[in-house]
């Protein structure tokens, strides 16, 4: 093997192809890695490129390479503080691969570089598992495989089209194996090994704290938060409130959930109207809750409903999660405990005094809580309040400043101010954060909820009615609630998109394209990324396999039967080539192999017969007869069907 490889000559073309495909594998990493490391890797690549261009130049000396290696290791360590873990590991892999280019000489080195290239391409999915990335990785794998083929084709006539054709052939052959492994390889619930802590940093979404301005920064993000497929009709936009963390506690500036000691107490509520059944596919957001439509009635197996009617999980959501839900949009919750009452009326001392005073004034002027609420909403509606994504910065008394000075704010400004006013007026109030609205995708028939749909609203507790949702933003900007965030800030969003369509025809097509694209992504998420142990067991239960153990057995059976089928096929092909005489002779040889006389593949009939007779002189006459017949049939010009029959009989009669 070694010698075989030794005299393969590596052409410059092969090296160029290798460099190109490795650059392709590395490209998405360029922006992710620290700039020094990216530059270093590119520099090594260019170095090798120029060596290849000017064939007089030679590879750097071993001492220089060792120094470069040490320098690279130090840089990686300085950047990450470690050489292990996901980020540092990927950086190290990229750098080592780039360094390998500088000592690549033999075929073995090239093969190592190509295999590392595959590995580097695989690390791309650590950051991005989307459909475009999968397509990109396919291209990278194709290029690398074509390079591998180019390396192995010794004939100088290997052209791009030959390599590409062979690669395509190999990929096609690998496809069934890939599908079998994808569907049948046992999926283990949860990750096989835990990912390092930094694996999910940087995921955006709603947190369990809110300050004025914390939600509006989300509103520029087009990232998908989750997708919802409804079993029956899609819910109206103004009822589409996706419940997240519930905020009670405030210091006048920041809001948080407060202590959660009361979570375990039993909850009771009555529901009226029809249930809404739907399935949510939640993008990872690294938080310990799920989103459900107001008000969730059932909890999926991974979550529980707490007293705030929030779906709480024990583990943070770190991968794409799919769950089925039932909610009721009309409900009535039960009474409030004294501690809850206390928390729902909590106001920080010495903050936002003017707002508190206004609330207290309303309490004195107006009779019923309902009247106070209506008055407050009217206040927001009639005063020159405006709804904006770019609210001015607020100081130490943010609610006062917002209510009486700037009067420009985003949903959290209205929710926070409203809560302060209500609590001052003696009405128990809390803030709910989550998402509101979403785009309906008519092609995929589901709702897309994006980060820009993040929202904050309030709930007031009224005697006999329980918690009632009040959305003060609706009083200021009803279009935000009716038509969604995009229409409320249409000017802004349009300016953001690079393509601006004045033409209505084009716009509608652009929309269709966008919906189609998202629908494709959704299917990808549902069926490829989301193909987990649960779906696997569902699929397998269709064919009657219930457990992982059974599946392992089924896999073994599948593999064995596939191998057997292949073996049989090749045997069948061989058999077709051989005529009846060879078959009979084969049987003869098999018979003899049972007594330990094995015909060698290159052994002629005379030699073989001689060997048998030396071993078993008692068989001489039989063997000679068979041999004569066989030679006559196989090597002499004319023979008859009769002779074949004779041979068959003789072989059958041969008793060992």
């Amino acid at each position, binding site marked *: 093997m070694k010698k075989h490889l030794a005299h393969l000559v590596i052409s410059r073309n092969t090296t160029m192809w290798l460099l190109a495909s490795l650059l392709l594998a590395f490209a998405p990493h360029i922006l992710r890695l620290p700039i020094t490391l990216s530059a270093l890797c590119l520099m090594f690549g260019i170095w090798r490129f120029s060596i290849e261009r000017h064939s007089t130049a030679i590879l750097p000396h071993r001492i220089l390479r060792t120094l470069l290696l040490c320098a690279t290791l130090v840089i990686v360590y300085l950047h990450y503080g470690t050489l292990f873990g996901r980020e540092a590991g990927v950086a190290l892999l990229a750098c080592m691969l780039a360094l390998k280019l500088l000592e690549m000489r033999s075929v073995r080195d090239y093969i190592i570089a190509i295999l590392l290239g595959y590995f580097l391409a695989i690390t791309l999915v650590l950051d991005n598992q989307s459909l475009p990335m999968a397509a990109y990785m396919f291209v990278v794998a194709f290029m690398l495989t074509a390079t591998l083929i180019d390396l192995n084709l010794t004939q100088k006539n290997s052209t791009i089209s030959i390599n590409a054709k062979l690669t395509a052939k190999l990929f096609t052959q690998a496809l069934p194996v890939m599908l079998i492994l994808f569907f049948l390889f046992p999926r283990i619930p949860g990750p096989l090994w835990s990912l390092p802590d930094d694996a999910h940093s940087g995921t955006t979404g709603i947190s369990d704290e809110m300050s004025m301005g914390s939600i509006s920064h989300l509103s520029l993000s087009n990232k998908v938060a989750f997708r919802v497929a409804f079993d029956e009709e899609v819910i109206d936009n103004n009822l589409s409130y996706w419940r997240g963390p519930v905020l009670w506690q405030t210091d006048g500036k920041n809001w948080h959930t407060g202590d959660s000691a009361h979570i375990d107490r039993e909850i009771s509520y009555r529901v009226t109207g029809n249930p809404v059944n739907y399935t949510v596919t939640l993008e990872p957001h690294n938080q310990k809750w799920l989103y459900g439509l107001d008000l969730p009635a059932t909890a999926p197996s991974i979550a529980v409903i707490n007293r705030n009617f929030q779906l709480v999980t024990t583990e943070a959501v770190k991968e794409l999660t799919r769950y089925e839900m039932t909610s009721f949009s009309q409900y009535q919750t039960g009474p409030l405990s004294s501690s809850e009452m206390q928390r729902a009326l909590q106001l920080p001392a010495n903050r936002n005094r003017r707002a508190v005073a206004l609330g207290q004034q309303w309490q004195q002027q107006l009779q019923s809580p309902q009247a106070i609420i209506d008055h407050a909403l009217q206040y927001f509606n009639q005063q020159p309040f405006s709804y904006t994504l770019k609210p001015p910065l607020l100081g130490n008394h943010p609610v006062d400043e917002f209510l009486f000075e700037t009067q420009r704010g985003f949903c959290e400004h209205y929710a926070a101010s409203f809560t302060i006013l209500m609590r001052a007026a003696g009405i128990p109030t809390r803030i709910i954060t989550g998402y509101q609205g979403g785009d309906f995708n008519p092609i995929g028939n589901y709702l897309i909820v994006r980060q820009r749909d993040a929202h904050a609203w309030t709930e007031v507790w009224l005697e006999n009615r329980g918690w009632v949702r009040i959305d003060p933003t609706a009083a200021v900007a009803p279009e935000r609630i009716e038509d969604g965030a995009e229409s409320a800030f249409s000017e802004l969003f349009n300016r953001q998109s690079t393509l601006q369509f004045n033409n209505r025809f084009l716009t509608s097509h652009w929309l269709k394209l966008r919906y189609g694209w998202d629908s494709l992504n959704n299917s990808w998420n549902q069926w490829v990324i989301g193909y987990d142990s649960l779906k696997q067991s569902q699929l397998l239960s269709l064919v009657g396999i219930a457990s992982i153990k059974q599946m392992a057995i089924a896999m073994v059976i599948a593999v064995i039967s596939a191998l057997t089928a292949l073996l049989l096929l090749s045997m069948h092909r061989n058999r077709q080539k051989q005529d009846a005489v060879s078959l009979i002779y084969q049987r003869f040889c098999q018979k003899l192999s049972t007594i330990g006389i094995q015909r060698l*593949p290159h*052994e*002629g009939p*005379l030699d073989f017969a001689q060997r048998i007779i030396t071993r078993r002189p008692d068989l001489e006459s039989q063997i000679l007869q068979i041999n004569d017949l066989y*030679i006559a049939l*196989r*090597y002499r010009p004319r023979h008859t069907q009769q002779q074949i029959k004779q041979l068959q009989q003789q072989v059958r009669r041969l008793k060992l």
Partner: protein
Amino acid sequence: MSQIASSILTPENRDKNIARLKQTLVVMNKVILGKEQTLRLALTCLIARGHLLIEDQPGVGKTTLAHLLARVLGLDFQRIQFTSDMLPADILGVSVYDQNSACFKFHPGPIFSQLVLADEVNRATPKAQSALLEAMEEYQVTTEGETHPLPSPFFVIATQNPSSQIGTFQLPESQLDRFLMRLEIGYPDQAHEKELLKGEDRREILKALTATLSPTQLLATQQAAPQVHVSDSLIDYLQKILNFSRHSPYYRNGLSPRAGIAILRCAQAWALLDQRDHLLPEDIQAILPATTNHRLQPAAEFSTSTPNEIVAHLLTVPLD
């Protein structure tokens, strides 16, 4: 000629001839002891109408073998000792002016003989070597515009001494290909050497020998050889061997189609000597090393192997 052939080529005649050939082999084995396989190969080469190259140490019986073949087959014999100052005319012959007839008369050289022993062929210059090899290939000699056919049968045994290479001109690979077989005789084993040392002078025995086969009978046998039946499966086997030599890492380059034909011709002659009218895989295997070891050069990594070690790999090619 064709009339003679057809009259001789009846099955009975053929069998008689082959029986005589077998008798010849027995006689030969009494002169050169313990080299049955080599003698048989030499005879096979002759029946297959090929020329023979013997490469071995001096004194192992190269010349004796040539003498012996000439003797037992009743062929007229010429020995040409090759030297570095030899000219083509020394082999082929010259035209000398004849005063009586007032014209040039061709005086045939030593090559005009049924069996020619070209001793130490690598001592001569390429020019002289080429003259011999051309005659071997063409079965005729052309000098000064005149073509003179060589006698029939015509058989050349060339010898080479592998050691003491100083002042020699190695035959190029393309010319080695002209020889159907290349044989090594090797030392006799202990028992046979003892017999040889105790026995009478080989030359005396040679002198006493009479021909067991006439040249006409030899010609008839030569014509019978290509009629040995070769089944398709053996053609496949031969092709496998050729392909193996072309793709295996052991050889610098593979066997040529001409080599393939040579193998087949030799195998047929071998089968005939075995009194068979059909070819068997064993026939091919028997003559394979002798017919290929001068045609295949080892690849760089295997340059330390001997030619016979290298061609032994060909014997491992599976039959089917």
